[in-house]
């Protein structure tokens, strides 16, 4: 099966835990990591990558409909969150990936794109984030 995407249409999907807002402002204090994540995602977006972000408290339907995310939730419960998908594949779960991890994974995908279908390690072509 040939991959349907190119680097230009890469998609990062972040499934956050239940929270009031994506910057974490509504907690008892600001979580600096959430600020960093929001900032990183905006930069990827500026580079032309599609970024989607979901909040369990607001869009539970998206979690139930995505079989991979739902599967992680069934297996690990709430500890599976946050889940980050790249082009629909599980990239990291249980924590946010760093900007470098995501950038490296995107670069690797661009290189491996033509041979992605023959990947020998069981199809889990994730990056250094270590999902599998």
């Amino acid at each position: 099966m040939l991959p349907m995407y190119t680097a230009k249409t890469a998609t990062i999907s972040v499934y956050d835990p239940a929270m009031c807002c994506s910057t974490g402002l509504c907690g008892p204090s600001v979580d600096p990591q959430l600020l960093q994540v929001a900032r990183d995602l905006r930069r990827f977006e500026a580079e032309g990558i599609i970024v989607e972000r979901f909040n369990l408290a607001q869009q539970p339907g998206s979690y139930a409909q995505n079989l991979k995310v739902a599967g992680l939730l069934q297996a690990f419960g709430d500890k599976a969150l946050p889940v980050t998908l790249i082009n629909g594949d599980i990239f990291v779960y249980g924590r946010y990936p760093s900007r470098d991890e995501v950038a490296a994974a995107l670069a690797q995908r661009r290189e491996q794109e033509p041979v992605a279908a023959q990947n020998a390690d069981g199809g889990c072509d994730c990056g250094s984030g270590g999902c599998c």
Partner: protein
Amino acid sequence: MLLSGARVPLKEKMAIMLRDTRIATLTPIDWSGWQTPFLFFTGKGGVGKTTVASTVALRLAELGRRVLLVSTDPASNLDDVFKIPAGSTATPVPDVPGLFLMNIDPEAAAAAYRERVITPYYGVLPASSLQSMEEQLSGACTVEIAAFNEFTGLLADPLVVSRFEHIIFDTAPTGHTLRLLSLPKAWSGFIETNSHGASCLGPLAGLEAQHEQYAATVRTLGDAARTTIVLVSRPESSALQEAARAGGEFRALGITNQQLVLNGVFTASVGEDAIAQAMLARQLEALQTMPEALRATPTVAVPLVAHDLIGVAALRRLSQTAEQTSPAGDISVANDSFDASSLPGLDTLVRQLEADGQGVIMMMGKGGVGKTTLAAAIAVALAHAGHRVHLSTTDPAAHLGQALGAAIPAGLQVGRIDPAAETRRYSEEVLAAAGPLDEEERALLEEDLRSPCTEEIAVFRAFARTVQEAERDFVVLDTAPTGHTLLLLDAAQSYHREVERTMGDVPEPVRRLLPRLRDPRFTKILLVTLAESTPVQEAERLQADLRRAAIEPFGWVINASLLKSGTNNPTLVQRAQGEVAHVLRVKQKLAARNWLVPWYASIPTGEQALLAMTSR
């Protein structure tokens, strides 16, 4: 309004007499003369909004109209007034055809909202996810939003609106009401300017579709043919100032059809009784120094009556009382069996508070029971005994300065938790902590900071910080009116849960708040009430809520007691006799400790007057 030479026949006016001289006349209320389909009652807590709104509703129903009376107060006492349990849908009042009651309970509305969001995912998402969703949807701002949603839903529902000729809202204490009613504008703007779908709409997300409903609510409120705002006040200066402030805020929102109701106007023709003379003089002074903005508002008056206003019969009796100059005959005046001096006073209370040498002293109770004055008196007494004392208020109207007068005694520090200032401070803190930001990132953060949650968090942090100061000294808190106080405590709990799992840098005072509030040596909560049914019921509810949060109140202060004032005026003596049953109930059934404070002829203001309250 206030006329010294009346232009209308005197028998249609209520006269205020001082030493048998007529000095002011007021138009008595026409209980059934209301034309607009929507009536909103607002005013300082304790001014009698529920009583006045209930009596208006009763009279309109008796004219043959279909009337819905709605309470949006989290601590609604409609049920007590009509002696029936009103549900979240229109509940008919037995014996009064055409009159229906409804309670919009913000807590219940929030619970229903949670149900709607979470239920579809039972069995689809794991239990731990459902639980974390539920936790997120349990905060104070969900409660506020859910209540607001119910309220606009009611106004926008053609089935409800066409079914009733009048819908009367007996709203919550003023701060809450204003927030509720001013939200449509704030939120319409908020939703329009929010370009990022996943941003800090919080529990508002998904409600955007109801934008039109919010806009319709704003139009309804601003339409003078459909809506009357009824400002209810006692003839007292702090209540009148509050009414003026509320009226001004409504005008600023384009809501101009306003009516002032002066409730509890004392009109007795008196001889020599000093207390009655003082009460009349105080009332007159308040009316004569009434804020300018209120003078332009059409004004009517409701007389002070001797009996408790509970039950349809009592309301009917009130609506038939044009002018009460002599006591009604059914309450016996002579009753010497109760000795008011047998109950301890504030001098005893101060000695008991002093015993632990430090700690937080918090006043709780219905608005208007005198929490501010009591807090100031306790703080001044402790400072005089040589302690370092912080006196702080979360009351948006900030009456503390008024109580203390010009000079602040040595050892006493006075502070105020100002929601606007706290929100600014928190926002600046957040932006500073975020480090260098580009323009777009800053805009995103600032947008999140405009969400309705931010103020709640900022005020809560300030509250925790103030409590922290009691480590070595005394902190005396005159808390905000009831509903807000409960939300604060509720926030304390939900934030405590949040704190346990958050990754952010949680300030120490926040982390330690709830354990501190539960420590009886550290925190002493005083339930403040008047010897009347509604404030006692309210304090009873607060006590039950505190106990659910594993907090035991230190005791009850019964304030402004005519029993202890020594009056001889027939109307006032009759009211004083009405206090006995309530005082006994508090003493025997409700309070671990109790103190009785007399009604003062003039509101104690300034160091000396406050000190006199706590000395023998």
